[in-house]
């Protein structure tokens, strides 16, 4: 059973979104959950992507991805009506959603995509939402409008000051924590390094912080242990115990090292693919 791409669009230089037919997943998926996809059957890599949105009636899910390597690049080159061979899910534990009062939702880079459905659900549960979105530069900022619609307050930062405030997200986050009415909880999804620093900020203010980890995965059903991280010094599997964890307990340094385990090989594969798409004229 393959899955048709209903529509596909570019959101920024390296970020893409597509709506994909997957009716059972659209029905069962909850905020915080993800799918594993592989483009063809025999040789393709299995990669995890968050369910950014779902339309159970239409039977579709939305994926948002950043082009970082071979598989995400290949996916970016696909067009509407083409088919993805395998889409499995929904995987992982759903986010625990309740009315906590005021919550800070912090997204960095592509992290805004997985953060959006969670923020929506938190809003629906009655929380006051303060969103902080960070990007390296203006062109890389995604989903600002969507967050604007559901946030009581929205703060945007860029590293280079090309848009919003020139700062790292940790700055406004710290200010939030210093307010009289500090957030009751924070949700942070971003590159690992940024989650690490956000957690250092919130730890000082004793604000419980949920992070969503993006480790390398193979099966995503708990069978291989490749996705394991250290939580409080103990190994946990991101695909079945997570992907969300108490950020104050995560060993981010080790996680980042594990993410780089295949860096050289992955770069080579990406280079090869770029050469290939150049040859077949996809670049034009």
């Amino acid at each position, binding site marked *: *059973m393959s899955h048709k791409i209903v529509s596909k669009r570019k959101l920024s230089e390296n970020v893409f979104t597509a709506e994909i037919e997957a009716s*059972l*997943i659209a029905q*069962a998926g909850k905020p915080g959950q993800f799918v594993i996809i*592989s483009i063809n*059957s*025999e*040789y*393709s*890599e*299995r990669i995890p992507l968050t369910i950014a949105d779902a339309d159970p009636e239409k039977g579709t899910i939305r994926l948002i991805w950043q082009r970082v390597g*071979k*598989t995400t690049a290949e996916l970016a080159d696909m067009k509407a009506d083409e088919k993805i*061979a*395998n*889409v*499995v*899910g*929904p*995987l992982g534990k759903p986010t625990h959603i309740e009315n906590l009062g005021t919550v800070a939702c912090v997204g960095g880079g592509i992290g805004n995509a997985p953060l959006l459905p969670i923020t929506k659900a938190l809003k629906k549960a009655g929380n006051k939402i303060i969103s902080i979105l960070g990007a390296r530069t203006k062109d890389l900022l995604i989903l600002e409008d969507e967050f604007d619609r559901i946030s009581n307050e929205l703060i945007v930062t860029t590293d280079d000051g090309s848009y919003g405030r020139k700062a790292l997200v940790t700055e406004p986050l710290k200010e939030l924590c210093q307010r009289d009415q500090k957030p009751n909880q924070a949700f942070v999804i971003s590159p690992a390094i940024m989650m690490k620093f956000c957690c250092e900020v919130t730890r000082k203010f004793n604000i419980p912080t949920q992070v969503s980890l993006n480790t390398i995965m*193979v*099966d995503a*059903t*708990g*069978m*291989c*242990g*490749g996705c*394991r*991280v*250290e939580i409080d010094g103990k*190994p946990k*599997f991101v695909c*079945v115990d997570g992907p969300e964890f108490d950020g104050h307990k995560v*060993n981010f*340094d*080790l996680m980042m*090292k*594990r993410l*780089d*385990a*295949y860096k050289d*090989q*992955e770069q*080579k*594969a990406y280079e*090869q693919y770029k050469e290939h798409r150049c040859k077949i004229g996809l670049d034009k």
Partner: protein
Amino acid sequence: MTDEERQELLKKQKTDKLTPADRYKIPPQDMPEQDPVKRRSNVNEVATGYTETHARLEAMRCLQCKKAPCIKGCPVQIKIQDFVAAICDGDFKKALAVIKENSLLPAVCGRVCPQEVQCQQTCTVGLKFKDPTKAVSIGRLERFVADLDQEEIIPTVAPETGMKVAVIGSGPGGIVTAADTRRAGHDVTIFEAFHKTGGVLVYGIPEFRLPKAIVQKEIDVLTEMGVKIVCNFVVGRTRTIEQLMKEDGFDAVYIGVGAGLPRFMGIEGESLVGVFSANEYLTRANLMKAYDFGKGADTPIVRSKKVAVIGGGNVAMDSARTAVRLGAEKVYLVYRRTEKEMPARIEEVHHAKQEGVEFHILQSPKRVIGDQNSRVTAIECLKYRLGEPDESGRRRPIPIEGSEFQIDVDTCIIAIGNIANPLIRQTTAGLEFNKWGNILVDENCKTSLDGVYAGGDIVLGAATVILAMGQGRIAAAAINDYLAKKKQKS
């Protein structure tokens, strides 16, 4: 033994009446295999299989014992002496038919059954030589007739009953349950989490031991019989068992999801880059074909120079031999007991040694050591000695204090077993489990829920292919019974 000597012996079978003493004199027929040096760099099957001459000579070694003690050793009670006699007579079709009465996957079991602790352990010939490897090579004979069977016979399917059966997991237990319930005319669907069917037979056991084409052939037969196969479907996530039964109209369910989660040792440094569970290492290599990375396959795998594999079972042997094939210069197998206690098949131990795997027995890692980039550089081990036998009857390994030493490695593969995957447990109310998380079943493989059956590794803990298959058979028979009664009532 030369070919001429073989032919000579074969003639005898036709003319002379052989006495047991004559039969004992026939040397055990070795299985031809790929040269150990060559096979270090390919993933083709190691043992290439008996020729007709080998097979008939090996079959001649069987004494046709009246009570056939071998049968008691086989978990599915194949009528061994009958199929072996048919091979003697050169009637291979009949031999296969006899086997298929009890086993649906002879090409698989002939290759991977631990015969030396099953059928061949109780074989009279083996007992005579006090060595199960000198028993009649029942597994090899089974494989021989199964491999000859080129045209696949599709079993007849009874008229449609209109009852629906869901089989969760496409491992050996699932395959057999699906075949047997479909034969009874039920509408059967297999739900598989992976994009490929076959369970451990495809993602765990490597190509060089069990060619994937053999498993695919069995799956193709299921499809021909009208079994529906839905891949990429994680029961408990995509749909729950309750939804399958209450909303999707399934009348009975077989749970054959296997063991699942890999066990780690709980030692320092186990999350360093370069430490893998055997499951991950083998899945990357087998299912994702990572050995072809850069030549088509997109899933990478470490290219290690020095590898330590921890464990002494089949999974450890498969990991070590896969590492050899991926180009490792040194592969160490680190096991805390001695070779005698190793649970792996004797043949795999033998093959691993031939391929250059170095055995480090009576040792076990205490911690994994890494560099500033968190990459593995060595394991620190303790030496062990054997104490009194424990509950399993094997002598207990006892660490020798102060015996620490290091082995330099860049990769460490942990192959010390699996624990039950909790997904079904977390998502199925009313299903009962033991304290290790294995599903509790009665002698018919029925669980605590009506219409729900289970078997294989999720019930037995770590089992074998043939045990999983046997349970599939039992469960299927019980499901067929249950559905017949259900139909009568309605």
